[in-house]
């Protein structure tokens, strides 16, 4: 217990302490507020600072290829540039922007575009690129937000049907039996199902199941992206078809067969066919080199051929110290030659039209992927759409016990809130 006399002096000490804490807090807040980062947009002509490139790499091959390409550019241009592979790209990117020190050039996914573009983080450089018109139009669409083409598509992937050729022959099927309609797909899947081996296996997510929506003329939003169409009759019909395939037992979710993704189920022989993108080539080569397979276009649905495509772009931070250099770097990285080098190194498809044929002849067994680009749809890119797709995926996991109409009605409500807020 304190003696009462000290009370006389306590206020002074307390004032002193308060002042000390207050000063330090003010200093800290001033330091935080004073970064001035947000005032720097629009200044094209900046110092020739070093460039940081942040990538979300699929593995060593990709990291190595990008590092080499950037180093080559750096040596030629004399601008210092460094590549960093993020372990969690979204998180590191968000941290960079929040801290006022974003990387200059980075991978940006379609579902992150809207939020970064709308808060002024992104430099809208893409329409000024020399090769701006060289990209696939559907990829340009994927990175167009508010009528502005924001960033250059880095490369892309589509979904196709991957077939285990050994199981195919064992089931007595030939080249002529390759399915081109939903009915034919069901028929061969039935023949390919025996014991633990399922005819067709895919992940329980819109990023795979969505191909059936596209093939039935459906989609989550209309072509202009102005209206939510999640519970359209086309979509309900498509999802009912998926449910029937699962219920009849010749199709299954990856989770049902205990696999993490389609490639794993396929490689382990749990699936005779799967719906995956061109990344499966790398996985098969590394993890399941003994499995022979063939890639064909997905069968057409009642409406048309359809698939989904996935892409990332090279984002440039509006707060970069060297926007000019960053744009030059991206121009180099998206050039036809460089993209072919990337394609060789880690199995992606070039985003520019002119080398599509070259890629096709270099990878004849993968031709179906690039041929699918003609009719591939994008996922919705509205701000918040990724969340809605996440919710749809959560619902798709329970498809076997739920009515398709009910699932799509619920998600429609959420998509409406995103599309027309």
């Amino acid at each position, binding site marked *: 217990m304190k*003696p009462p*006399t*000290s009370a*006389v*002096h*306590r206020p*002074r*000490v307390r004032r*002193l*302490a308060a002042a*000390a*804490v207050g000063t*330090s*807090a003010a200093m*800290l*807040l001033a330091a*935080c*507020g*004073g*970064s001035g*980062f*947000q005032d720097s947009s629009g200044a094209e002509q900046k110092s020739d600072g070093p460039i940081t490139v942040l990538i979300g790499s699929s593995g060593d091959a990709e990291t190595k290829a990008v590092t080499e390409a950037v180093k080559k550019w750096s040596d030629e241009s004399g601008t210092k540039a460094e590549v960093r592979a993020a372990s969690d790209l*979204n*998180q590191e990117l*968000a*941290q960079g*922007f*929040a801290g*006022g020190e974003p990387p200059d050039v980075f991978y940006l996914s379609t579902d*992150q575009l809207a*939020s*970064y573009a*709308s*808060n*002024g*983080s992104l430099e809208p450089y893409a329409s000024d690129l020399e090769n701006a018109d060289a990209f696939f139009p559907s990829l340009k669409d994927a990175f167009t937000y508010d009528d502005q083409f924001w960033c250059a598509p880095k490369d892309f992937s589509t979904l196709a049907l991957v077939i285990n050729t050994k199981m195919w022959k064992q089931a007595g099927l030939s080249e002529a039996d390759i399915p081109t309609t939903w009915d034919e797909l069901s028929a061969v899947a039935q023949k390919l199902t025996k014991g633990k081996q399922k005819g067709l296996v895919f992940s*329980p997510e819109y990023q795979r199941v969505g191909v059936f929506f596209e093939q039935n003329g459906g989609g989550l939003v209309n072509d202009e992206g102005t209206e939510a169409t999640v519970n359209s009759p086309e979509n309900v019909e498509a999802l009912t078809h998926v449910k029937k395939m699962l219920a009849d037992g010749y199709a299954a979710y990856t*989770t*049902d*067969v*205990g696999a993490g993704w389609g490639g794993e189920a396929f490689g382990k022989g749990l699936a005779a066919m799967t719906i995956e993108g061109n990344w499966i080539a790398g996985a098969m080569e590394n993890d399941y080199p003994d499995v022979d397979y063939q890639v064909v276009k997905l069968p057409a649905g009642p409406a048309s051929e359809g698939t989904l495509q996935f892409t990332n772009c090279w984002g440039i931070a509006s*707060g970069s110290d060297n926007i000019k250099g960053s744009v030059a770097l991206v121009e180099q990285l998206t050039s036809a030659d460089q993209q072919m080098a990337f394609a060789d190194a880690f199995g992606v498809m070039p985003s520019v039209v002119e080398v599509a044929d070259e890629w096709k002849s270099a990878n004849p067994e993968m031709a179906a992927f690039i041929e699918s680009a003609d009719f591939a749809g994008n996922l919705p890119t509205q701000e*918040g759409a*990724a*969340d*809605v797709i*996440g*919710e749809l*995926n*959560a*619902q798709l*996991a*329970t498809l076997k016990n739920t009515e398709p109409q009910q699932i799509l009605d619920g998600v429609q409500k*959420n998509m409406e*809130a995103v599309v027309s807020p």
Partner: protein
Amino acid sequence: MTTRGSRPARAGLGNKARQEFAGWIFISPVVLLLGLFLLVPVLMAAWVSVSDWSGQGSPLSSDVSFVGAENYTRILFGGGLDTQDFGTSLRNNLYYVVLVVPLQTALALGLAVLVSKRLLKARGFFRTAFYFPSVTSSVAITALWLFLFNASGVVNKILSWVSIDGPNWFSDPRGVLHLLLGVVGIDTAPPALANGEFLGISWWEWLAGPSVAMSAFVLMAIFTTSGTFMLLFIAALQNIGPEMEEAATIDRANAWQRFRYITLPMLKPTMFTVITLGLIGTWQVFDQIYTGTQGGPAKTTLTPAYLSFNAAFNQNDWGEGAAIAFILFAIIVFFTLVQRWILRDRDKVTSTRDPRATAAAVEAER
């Protein structure tokens, strides 16, 4: 201490003041550190939760504006996806807490009593063995768990010996309570439960119970944290001393009575600590979700902590992320107060209406 007599009062008081000042100087590093790394960030997070900061630049810059409780109302009453996700995460975490906290406390106490027995051989070995999971990184244990509970993993292998076809644990979104209700023939929602809803999800969904995937996480939490709390109980048990037990034995109390009427009441302060720490830890569960399932399957392992991370870092909705964190904080405080109230000392409090009596009883107990 007061100064006496002839010396001027100023000198004595000055001495006192100097001492206090020196005291402040000595603790100033800690005060500064805590202020800098605890208080200021918390205040900034509080500001972010009522602002429209989009994650670009400083949250204190001029183009970030105050939006009032908008982030909070959107989460709690908006009725959209944000509310739905929060409701789902709350349900998941509630079942997690309700299962993990009592079970881990009971197991920890049981283990502590066992390894405190003086007759037990190799006590040191058992203590280390039980404590071992607690010092292993949660990421490593999660990875191990993913293997053990794989569709064709060890757990399902063992279940198959007794002719049980084990589920595909980490990708099974079915709620355990729903499964049990299904056994007695209730597999669709009664209209009364299907129509009403709270926080965007129907009462029937609230009653789903933890999903099969979440149950695997529940088992993991019990497995990993019981060791830590066992340590706390061991320390408390050693404080009780053998004479108590001997006295009770002379009074012809049997083993259960000795435990129930001697040991357990004396462990009450430790019990409070263990349950409080358990509540806080389970409400903040994050690592396992982040490394294991990221909220899947079908969002049944989504927790408020992970939702907050996801809103901020993946959706760039920092206001919402911060708001979820503060709501979570409020929930933890609420549950801690509730358990404090439940564990209050009932015997000594004669009248709950008289706060002075309560205070006296509490004081006396200390």
